[in-house]
């Protein structure tokens, strides 16, 4: 099967969708000899570098109004040195909160935000007590709403002047695990707007902000169940949105390369299964309990693993796309194996029958 992906010139319907598993690439240029061969760099799986070519037809510098690359070319890029300024959305509980804590422990400055003002306030208060004043600040922000995200950006500029690491953590599955046919309108709309629309708006604002910063920046999108394309029955909408997150990251990476934005990068971040409210609310079936016991980890453990990984990216200065995974396939299989073989982790968080 083949994936034809036309990264630059023919972005429309670039994957001929039915043939998703890629194993062979077509080289169109031999077929279309009348056209410039270098335009037709067909490659498998998307994000190949095509931007070294000065006479590309769809070059976008002229069309970009914000002109990030022109600025970045004029100004010399400053190296990113710790402490970093970190912004985490949806960070008053769960993995977002744990990440914030872990960044603070590493000496970074953190901005937290969430939909509810009380939660933001209490979170800021507890974090302040632990790590001292001025290192953490928080604001109310609903990521679905463009103007609120813009306000968040201005708030971040006021407080910290620039943001090095922006983590799009806000996500929801409306805490409901049921078949799609029983899902309510509000739940579906909330899931999709928070996970997909909110993420897109945040990405756009973050790219806009970071491309104008001399230090540049890194954006991390948090994936979730379903992002590998595997089915997620009982939370179909959530899975679909998380799949779209990974795809959006991929497309944005390709777009940034096309526009020759050199100082901003979008990454994926996979926390695996974390024993947060979002996951635990679905622990109803035997199967779900089994997998939660075997594979899930508390948010603190996951954050402790992820944060050094995240921080190593700006400190190394590399601008390559990464996908940081906590629960790698090997880890998952070995844990399942040890459970099956030695009964490890049985009834760890939940009592199995």
């Amino acid at each position, binding site marked *: *099967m*083949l*994936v*034809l992906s036309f990264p630059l*010139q*023919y*972005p*429309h*319907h*670039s*994957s*001929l*969708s*039915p043939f*998703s598993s*890629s194993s062979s690439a077509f080289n169109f240029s031999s077929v*279309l000899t*009348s*056209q410039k061969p270098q*335009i037709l760099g067909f490659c498998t*799986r*998307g994000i190949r570098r095509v931007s070294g070519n000065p006479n590309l*037809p*769809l070059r976008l510098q002229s*069309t*970009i109004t*914000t002109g990030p690359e022109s600025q970045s070319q004029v100004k010399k890029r400053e190296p990113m040195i710790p402490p970093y300024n970190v912004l985490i959305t949806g960070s008053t509980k769960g993995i977002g909160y744990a990440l914030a804590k872990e960044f603070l422990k590493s000496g970074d400055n953190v901005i937290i935000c969430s939909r509810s003002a009380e939660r933001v306030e209490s979170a800021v208060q507890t974090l302040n007590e632990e790590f001292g004043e001025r290192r953490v600040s928080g604001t109310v922000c609903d990521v679905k709403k463009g*103007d609120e995200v813009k306000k968040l950006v201005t708030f971040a500029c006021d407080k910290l002047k620039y943001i090095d690491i922006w983590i799009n953590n806000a996500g929801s599955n409306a805490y409901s695990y049921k078949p*799609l*046919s029983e*899902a309510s*309108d509000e739940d*579906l*709309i909330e899931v*999709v*707007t928070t996970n*997909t*629309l909110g993420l*897109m*708006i945040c*990405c*756009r604002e973050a*790219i*806009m902000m970071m491309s104008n910063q001399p230090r540049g920046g890194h954006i991390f999108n948090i994936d979730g169940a379903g992002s590998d394309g595997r*089915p*997620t029955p*009982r939370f*179909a909408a959530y*899975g*679909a949105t*998380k*799949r*779209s997150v990974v*795809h*959006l990251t991929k*497309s*944005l*990476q390709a*777009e940034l390369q*096309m526009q020759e934005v050199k100082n901003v990068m979008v990454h994926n971040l996979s926390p695996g299964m974390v024993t947060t409210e979002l996951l635990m609310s679905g622990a109803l079936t035997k199967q779900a309990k089994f997998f939660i016991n075997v594979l899930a980890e508390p948010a603190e453990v996951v954050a402790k693993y992820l944060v050094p990984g995240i921080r190593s990216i700006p400190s190394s200065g590399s601008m390559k796309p990464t996908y940081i995974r906590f629960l790698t396939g090997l880890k998952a299989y070995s844990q399942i194996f040890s459970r099956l073989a030695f009964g490890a982790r049985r009834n760890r968080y939940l009592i199995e029958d």
Partner: protein
Amino acid sequence: MAAVSKLHLSPQTFLHHLTFKDPSLSDHPPKLRPLLRRNPGKTDGILSFRQRNGRFRPLRHPCRAFRSENGGESTEKRVELVERDGIVEEKNRSLSKKGKGILYSLKSLLLRASGSEKSVSGEKCQSAMAKLEEIFFSVVTQFGRYLLTMTSTGVILAVGFQLSGGDSQMNTLIWYSWVGGIIIGTMIGANMVLEEHSRAGPRNVVITGSTRGLGKALAREFLLSGDRVVVASRSPESVHTTVGELEEDLKKGILTAGSMSKLHMARAKVVGIACDVCEPEDVRKLANFAASELGSIDIWINNAGTNKGFRPLLQFTDEDIDQIVSTNLVGSLICTREAMHVMNSQEKGGHIFNMDGAGSGGSSTPLTAVYGSTKCGLRQLQASLLKECKRSKVGVHTASPGMVLTDLLLSGSTLKNKQMFNIICELPETVARTLVPRMRVVKGSGKAINYLTPPRILLALVTAWLRRGRWFDDQGRALYAAEADRIRNWAESRARFSFTDAMEMYTENTWVSVFSLSVVCAFIILSSSSSSFPGT
């Protein structure tokens, strides 16, 4: 060994027929000719392309006719065993379909003949006679085909006897395998006929976003197949005009159609309602409207989708992103859910189709990041739904139209893009014509109905140089006819029944089973013949 080579060769020809059975492909051989002739003096650029384009549609006719002859009559060249199944089945079907008509017209003729002595109505009698003659002719043709296949299977028998060299044991084996082949072939044919018969009748179809582009073409195609269609779109005016246009098309279709399809089309109807798929209330209204207007919903197609042009994410406004996400993802989710509600309450269930798009496969879609990621999410949704609907009567499927020349694709496309479109794009009508017959006969759940199948892509790549000026010229101006003209040509080419259409009705699985059966038969004959001649 003559049988060996024959039987080895034939599956290939048969396969060839299988893979290239679609009508859109059939226009390449004739198209090739004018282009080839024209190519040496290709200085007259645009003009010649236009001319060719004008020619392109009328050429469709002879081509289809040629193919139908090829499929039906020239049986000797093909494998007898395989062909026999096909023909028997076709014969059965045509008989079962025409049985009523024949008897009826015979009766009416007799009545008129007996009545004509009293009241002189020679003209009526003549027309009835002509009709009977026509029917008689078709019956004779079918019978002739059947005879032909029988004799050609006789050839196999004869060859088998020849090879067995008078060994009586071998002879009985050959006889048995032949009879077995006949029986199995007839059973397969009968099964298909019965299935077709029981599943015949109009489907009730709901298509969202069907006032333009592919949705409209799909609606028209369903309508002309004799189905009842509900058209839905955001604006009430466009729904109204679309319903009017489609009714017009249906009337024209009935005028030009043959007697059989006329019968089908008499039951077709189209209704419309305004519906914004992002609004759960609207979708509920649409489902209730469809259920009350048509009684039940058999097929629901989530076709509504939007793209908002091709540009980097930074240039999309909040409203753009909101609209794309809510139309593509929220809309599909809500529509699927409502369709599942309706279909679960129906006795015979139903089928839901979600439309694929760029990004469904998982490769990146720069400049359409939002659209691509929503479509990618839909693919994951499909996998989840498949698990959720495992034991229900509802089938969830995907339909992938490939690249279609619609507003969604053409908005903001550059010259280079358009030259690319020449190679791989198709008109919405062409795509609909391929997708609709498959959607109508879909069974089970989790099927993917694709327009751009590997052979099609291969063909597009191989013939890329021929396709350069197909839809757009060097300046990016559209060369294809406006929708109204296309529809007129379309109606003409639809009018006659062709063998390829009949072949399209059956799923690939059937053909695979027929093919494997023929291989088994060939193996029996081969093994029996080689054992009698240990030397060869």
